[in-house]
């Protein structure tokens, strides 16, 4: 099996170009690729579009800044496509001041749009958001008397994700609730970089227990 390059967090950050659409795994900081995020902050890339469940937790008083929050703080994002920003006042500030654009997407719809992109589907029909502001600008279809919104695939240029374990070919296993959006984003982006807590030899993971097949992964970063 072909092995994937093991690179540094800084090398990973260098793969992200200004203006890229970047999918970032994690849920309120759980399962976020923290070392790569820190390296992108250091690299100072901007004009990015974020696709993530949320913009992380930012609490200055408690000294907490997790998930994509350090990148929000660094004003790396022109646009943020997320389901929740309630735990990051800086995101709300940037949105209200017009410094950045925030597009709110229902969490399940976000998951399906990312999956659709990775799975070659143009989109899906979901009942979520019917009768709400989420409808605006979307096609509505009625099937068997029930209304659905057509939600389109949402792909990205680069995905940065976090795994518990990667073999050197790129097969991944996630831990507990740190799985969340990571396996979906792994399918949906041109370049996929995983930050793995543990890197093991090819063959060390039971083939029935692989969460993300190796072929989706381009680069591996050893988590700190």
């Amino acid at each position: 099996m072909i092995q994937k390059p093991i690179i540094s967090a800084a090398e990973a950050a260098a793969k992200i170009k200004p203006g890229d659409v970047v999918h970032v795994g994690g849920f309120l900081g759980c399962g976020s690729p923290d070392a790569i995020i820190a390296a992108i902050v250091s690299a100072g890339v901007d004009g990015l579009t974020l696709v993530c469940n949320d913009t992380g937790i930012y609490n200055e008083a408690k000294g907490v800044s997790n998930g994509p929050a350090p990148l929000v703080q660094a004003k790396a994002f022109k646009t943020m496509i997320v389901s929740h920003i309630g735990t990051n006042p800086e995101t709300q500030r940037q949105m209200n001041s017009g410094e950045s654009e925030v597009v709110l997407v229902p969490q399940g719809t976000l998951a399906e749009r990312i999956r659709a992109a990775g799975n070659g589907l143009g989109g899906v029909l979901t009942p979520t958001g019917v009768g709400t502001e989420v409808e605006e600008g979307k096609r509505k279809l009625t099937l068997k008397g029930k209304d659905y919104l057509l939600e389109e695939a949402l792909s990205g240029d680069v995905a940065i994700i976090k795994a518990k374990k990667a073999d050197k070919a790129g097969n991944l296993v996630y831990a507990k609730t740190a799985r969340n959006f990571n396996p979906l984003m792994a399918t949906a982006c041109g370049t996929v970089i995983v930050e793995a807590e543990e890197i093991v030899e090819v063959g060390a993971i039971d083939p029935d227990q692989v969460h993300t097949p190796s072929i989706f992964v381009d680069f591996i970063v050893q988590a700190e």
Partner: protein
Amino acid sequence: MIEYVENKEIIARRIARFFASGDVVNLGIGLPTMVGNFVPEGVTVILQSENGMMGLGPAPEKGKEDPMLVNAGGMPVSILPGGCFFDSAMSFGIIRGGHVDYTVLGVLEVDQDGNLANYKIPGKMVPGMGGAMDLVAGSKKVIAATTHLEKSGSSKLKHRCSLPLTAAHEVDIVVTDVGYFTVKDGKFRLEEYFAPYTPEWIVEHTGADVVVAPGCKEFK
């Protein structure tokens, strides 16, 4: 004269009584999370957390938290034997696919047509909908949990929501700290009242059309 005093515990206690063994339940952040503490002895519900798990257990002891094991609010939790983890697509497949029996969530407003608003106060506060829109659209029964009155004294139950909706026509049950209502035919229907409040007091202090169900009784 009856004076209104906020009482979140009664809301959580009443909601916990709806469940039967085997029900799959999603409890939202805040007040709904309290419901888990009041599930009657002998009733085993399966708690789902939309960040990707089934079989949510209590918070671990201090010092035993696992940063990889949190609930949808990012707080440390545990998993019960027989629970499992899954990704966000499966999590919302479970939710949207009608495999969750009850979702319990807080509201900013709820109206007599079963509309619910809880994710946005335009120009003021925009936390985002997170998983709420899917939960409300997909769960078999939606229970809105809310104190009956605002601090200002105005009713959380409305003729019509004025805030952007989280979902239209999806709320089945509303439990406040004065009583339990179903949503039927464009009205709130009072099914039970909580002492010291009376049906008369409740009808008078609700900013929406309330009918008192024929079998309406006091909850004990």
